Structures are given as C-alpha cells and as structure tokens.
C-alpha cells in the first residue's frame, strides 16, 4: 500500500476516534448555552450564547452544596484509599508472610462483585452503623471499589522498586514507616497520580450508592442531584439546566488530569541503582 494511503487512513482513524469521544461533550456544551425553544433545534455549531442555564443551576437551591459534597467526598476517598493502599502495598510487596498470595487474590475478588449485589447488605450495614444519610456512608462504601485497584496497582509498582534502595535505607537506620514516607513515596508519584485520579473519577461519578444511602437533597452528590433535577412541571425535562450542570461537574476532572499529567513522568528511579 502506498505511503500516502496509509497516512490518510491513519489520520482518518484519528479524526474518527476524536469525534467519537469528544462529540457528546461538545454537544452538551452547545446545549447548555441554548435557552427556550432553541433547545429543540438541532445544530452543530454554536449559534446561541446564553449563560442563563449556568446561572440557573448555580443559584438554584442546593446544587452548589451538592458540588461541595462531591468534592469533599472524592478528596477524602482518594486520601484514605491512597494512605491505606500505600501501607498495604508495602506489606504485600516487601514482607513475606503466610497467605500473602491468598490475601492479594481476595482483594482482587472483592472488586468483582457487582455493586447491585452488595447494595442491600451494605444498606443494612450503613443503617446499623448509624451513618445513613451522611457522607460517611458513601466514604465507607466507595472504598469497596477504590481500594482493590489502588492496592493492586501500588503493590505491583512497589514490587518493582529496587530492593537495594530499601536495604540502604534500613542500613541508614530508617524505620519501615520512614522508608515508605521518605524513600518510596517520592519514587511512586506516577503510580500515585494515576491511581489517585482513577479513584477520584470513580468516586466523583458514582451513582447507585449515592442514590441509595443518601435521601436528603442537601447531602446528595452531583450525579444524583443532576439526575433528579426537575423542571417547572413533571412533563418538562430541563435539558438546558442538566447540560449546564453536567459541564460544570466535568470541568474539575479535566482540570485535574491536565494538572497531574505533568507529574506522570517515567524514569523517576533513574540513577539510583545500576540498571
């Protein structure tokens, strides 16, 4: 096949993939800027420009509180998950104990249960613990899906860190906690950023648990709040407001990825030991 054809084919594919992944979001932005009956006219280029929907969603009742809830929830979930996962990863990757393999497999198995399967049981636990209708219930529930993959990814990553560096730190008199905090953590930035982002996104987008464990409007998180946005009458679905809210909650994710992609640099251990 001639070079030109290959090249054209390649870029056609790129354009297709970009369109496929970006178009829905682009269309959400377009819709969020329309108002009134313009909402129901289909067009692919921005013709209207009205911020009324944004104004509406941000001044309407508890939506700003919902955003704050989501931020607090996601940040706390990420912080606790990473702390537990890093300490667990040290034990699972560097300390030999009976049943280590079994424990790792169990952790993996936990992440295989569908959310709906554990929902009823979790609900009972949440009621029993007295955290129903609070963010604590969600912090607790989200660990179920964030911890397995953070533990697995960090364990794999830590296992690949050179053992001599740890031994050098032991000879230098560092305790296991000092080794994890001052020697391993700085070397694990790429893994921490990646797993932290994934955990953040998972917590940010989660719907089912958030819908079930919280019934109070002011305690809801953003995905549930958006789904429950209602218009003036039961028959009207407020597409403009929903799209504006969706755009608002997507922006933080994009900003986070852009900030941290600089941190995802490879070869951080270069120079420590002979390759």
């Amino acid at each position: 096949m001639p070079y030109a054809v290959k090249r054209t084919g390649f870029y056609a594919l790129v354009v297709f993939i970009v369109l496929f992944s970006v178009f829905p979001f682009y269309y959400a932005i377009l819709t969020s800027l329309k108002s009134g009956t313009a909402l129901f006219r289909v067009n692919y280029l921005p013709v209207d420009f009205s911020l009324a929907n944004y104004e509406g969603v941000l001044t309407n009742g508890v939506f700003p509180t919902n955003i704050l809830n989501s931020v607090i929830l996601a940040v706390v979930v990420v912080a606790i998950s990473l702390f537990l996962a890093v300490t667990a990863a040290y034990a699972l990757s560097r300390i030999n104990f009976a049943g280590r393999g079994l424990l790792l497999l169990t952790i993996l198995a936990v992440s295989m249960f569908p959310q709906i399967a554990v929902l009823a049981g979790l609900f009972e636990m949440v009621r029993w613990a007295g955290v129903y209708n609070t963010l604590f219930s969600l912090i607790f529930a989200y660990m179920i899906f964030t911890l397995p993959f953070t533990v697995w990814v960090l364990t794999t990553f830590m296992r690949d860190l050179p053992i001599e560096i740890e031994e050098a730190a032991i000879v230098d008199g560092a305790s296991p906690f000092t080794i994890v905090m001052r020697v391993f953590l700085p070397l694990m930035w790429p893994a921490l950023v990646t797993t932290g982002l994934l955990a953040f996104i998972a917590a940010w987008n989660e719907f089912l648990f958030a819908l079930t464990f919280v019934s109070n409007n002011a305690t809801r998180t953003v995905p549930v709040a958006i789904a429950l946005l209602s218009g003036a009458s039961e028959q009207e679905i407020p597409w403009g407001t929903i799209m504006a809210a969706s755009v608002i909650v997507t922006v933080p994710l994009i900003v986070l990825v852009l900030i941290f992609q600089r941190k995802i640099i490879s070869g951080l251990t270069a120079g420590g030991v002979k390759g």
Partner: protein
Amino acid sequence: MANLKLTKVRKAYGSVEVLHGIDLDIRAGEFVVFVGPSGCGKSTLLRVIAGLEDITGGTLEIGGRVVNALTPKQRGIAMVFQSYALYPHMTVYDNMAFGLTLEKGTGKEEIDRRVREAARILQIEPYLDRLPKALSGGQRQRVAIGRAITRDPQVFLFDEPLSNLDAALRVQTRIEIARLHERMEGTTMIYVTHDQVEAMTLADRIVVLNKGHVEQVGSPMELYNSPDNLFVAKFLGSPSMNILPATIESAGATTRVVPQGGSTVDLPVATPGSLQGKPAHLGIRPEDLSVSDDRAAPFRGTVVLTESLGEVTLVYIDIGRADEPFVAKLPGEVAMERGTRIGLTARPEAMRLFDESGQAIRSQMRRAA
C-alpha cells in the same frame, strides 16, 4: 574501633543451609576480604553481618557485644552496595545526609560538617547539588561510599562495590578504597568480591569461602604461597595452579612423587610413611615453570596454544592428560609453533603436594623454603 567475632554462624533458607557454621575473628581496624566463586555464600555472610539477613544459628559479636538481634543501625555498620542503591529523588548532599537526619541529636551544622568532609575526601564536592542520574557510575559509587563515611561506622561493609565499573575506573576506585582504609584508621572493613586481584591488593587478610564453608584465612601471600588445600590453591592465581594426579613413590624426609604426564620429582617435603604408595596431587603454578632443554625435564609435551599478553606469554601444553591442558606462564614474548615439543621444569621447592582428599602436605622444610 570494633572487632568482630563469628562463632558457628549458620544461615538457612527454609531447609537449605547456605552457611555451615562459620568461625571467624576479625581484628579492629583490619581490612578483610571475603572471596569465593558465585554461590559460595560470601554475600550472604556479609548480609548476615550487616543485619539484612537473620542469623539462623551461632553468635555474631561486634566490639564484644552480641548483635544477633540488633538492627543494622544499632550494630554500627555502614554498607556500600554493588548497585550503589542511591536514593534517586535526593541530591548527592541529601543522599549522604539522610542517615544522619534520622538520628536524633545530630545538629544541622554537625551534619553539614560531616557531609562536606566526606565529599572533600572523595572529591565529589562539585556534585553535591546534583541528582544521582546526573552522575557517572564511578561518581555514583563514590557517593555511596560517602554516604557510608558520614555515618562514621565501626564496621564498613562493601558488597562487590567495583563490579559495575569499567576496568580503568575499577583500578582507580580500588586504589581510592585502599587509601580510604589508611585514612579511616581503626575502622574495620569487610569487602566481598569474586575478583582475586581486588582480594590480593586490598586485603590484610583474605577469607576464602566455598559452599558455605571457610576454606582458609590468611594474608594474601600466605594464601598464595602455602594454600591449605586444592580449592584455595586453584582459586588464587591466574591462570590457576596446574594440578596433576600423582602417586607417592617413597615417603620420608623428602618425598618422591610420580605425577601423571610427568616424570619422577623429588620434593623437599617430609611425609609420613603411611602415605607411601598412596595417590596424591601435585600442584605447580604456571609462573613457576620454565622451559628446559634438559632431556630430564619432568614435564614434556607439545604446544597446543599460546596467548601473548605482552609482559607474559601463556603456553598451553598437552602432556598426555585428557582433561585440562598444562599451562606455563613465561616472561616476555615467546614465539612457539603449535605442535612444538618442549620440556618444562620447576624448582622442587615451588611444587606443592596435596593428599588424596586435597589437603596440603607441608613440613618444616617446606615452610623454610
């Protein structure tokens, strides 16, 4: 200032024992080199002394104190790793200061003074602000040594520190380590290597290890001149000692031996009569052999191969033994056609006799020689 005393030190991984009761006394301020082939347990022994591996049995004393259950830090040791093992995210300065910052009661000025002193000794002052990845291999190894110096250890451990360096740098760093030992008077140093040149040049005493046992302990020249057994005899020296199976024809004040592939030689070694007629091993170092035109030269054969190294020539000779060729190390350049028949001889005092089990047979006369 600390001596080390190992008493019946054993190390086992599960049911596999890799160190079988090591007894060793190391004097304070001594430079001791552990040497042996791969898998002989020399690195394991060093790691046991360091405290990176538990001791399965026996006791280890440093400075008269049993340290079996102490951490590396409490033992007062510092270690230089083969792969440098620097902290990649810290500058050279922080790498060297890290151990000190973990100690309570060491002030900032004191840390700074010690780091700069170590940097001055090792000539790495210009690189203090660099990260390890911006350094060459030799510089990295010096930082690793510097990190150990700042800790001011009682015992300094080296685990094959030169094996990742290229040949020229290896010689240079070897000399620096020898100087460092002179400078750090009173600091005991233990050095693991498989390189016999490093062992011979650096050591006050060499410990030859084989399969988890100590074969012999002694100064480099003791080991070279009077090896206790066949293993030590073959391990030190390059090319290694020629060993010929032999029979003791007559024992007594001097011993008459008939080696396979050679003619009868009389050795100035006294042997007990019980060895009369018994099999033995005759060892001759390649450098002790010289060409002889004498028809009575004990070793005669045809040249198989010559290797010219410049200052010496190695000549491989077939003397009618199937297994290993007989090697002679002759001074200067020696031109010899393949297939040439030559005779070789050695002074009887330079030949070593080992009994059937490989133990050296020595006598007072041999020692005097």
